[in-house]
């Protein structure tokens, strides 16, 4: 069972980041060490990043997030970067060329990012964008979502309430509450 299937049946919120970490370490066995770092990043530029390397036969993942981020954002950033530890070979930025390409793509202005995605940028860049959606699908799991969506549609619960339950940024809840959310997830390669 992959990590998305594992968490999709959860209805207890919030999903603990350490549960995702444990899955990556113990079920997927994709890393030997995972460390979280609150660093002096400017979140206007990057909110966080994954640095994954092999050190003398041990796979070490550093999950770095901007110290000034609030809890909800920290959770989203760390979830996304934990998922990237599981990237397959074609999705990793493992070579100098791939890293350079990824940085180029990250630096494209926000209003041009959709055009970049639709133009079919390299896998490492595309997957960086998709990672946010995949993280959202874990922190707002399918079964919990399917229970909350009718309440949201009936106006009995708001996006800010769901954000408080799931402990994720409210803007991402509003995005997930579109009717095509499941179709969006299913379209991810």
């Amino acid at each position, binding site marked *: 069972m992959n990590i998305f299937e594992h968490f999709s049946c959860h*209805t*207890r*919120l*919030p999903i603990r*980041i*350490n549960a995702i*970490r444990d899955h990556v370490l113990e079920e997927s066995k994709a890393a030997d*060490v995972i*460390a*979280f*770092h*609150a*660093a*002096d990043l*400017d*979140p*206007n*530029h*990057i909110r*966080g*990043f*994954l*640095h*994954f*390397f092999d*050190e003398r036969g041990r*796979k070490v993942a*550093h999950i*770095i997030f901007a110290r000034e981020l609030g*809890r909800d954002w*920290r*959770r989203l*950033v*760390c979830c*996304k970067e934990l998922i990237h*530890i599981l*990237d397959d070979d074609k999705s*990793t*930025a*493992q070579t*100098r060329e791939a*890293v350079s390409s*990824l*940085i180029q793509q*990250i*630096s494209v*202005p*926000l209003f041009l990012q959709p055009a970049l995605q639709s133009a079919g940028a390299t896998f490492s860049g595309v*997957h*960086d964008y998709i*990672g*946010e959606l995949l993280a959202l699908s874990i922190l707002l799991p399918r*079964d*919990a979502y399917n*229970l*909350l969506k009718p*309440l949201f549609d009936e106006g009995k*619960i708001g996006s800010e309430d769901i954000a408080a*339950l799931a*402990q994720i940024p409210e803007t991402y809840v509003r995005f997930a509450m579109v009717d095509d959310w499941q179709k969006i997830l299913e379209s991810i390669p």
Partner: protein
Amino acid sequence: MSEKDRLLRALFETPGREHLNIKFFRGQKIEISEEDVCKEASKALFEIENGLTDASDGFDDQIKREIDVKDLVGVR
């Protein structure tokens, strides 16, 4: 040396290490430069190497209470 060169050196020229992957969560600023991205990443890697970050092997979730959405739906 550019910030990009500095970052690439940190990733690919650290003795005893083989780079496997790097990914970024982009910030909200509409326009950022490659040098901005690389400068921030290099700075953070330097902090880590020198023990200047708040580091932990677990995430500080600070969760006060878990709620089962099934129960929430039942009472609405």
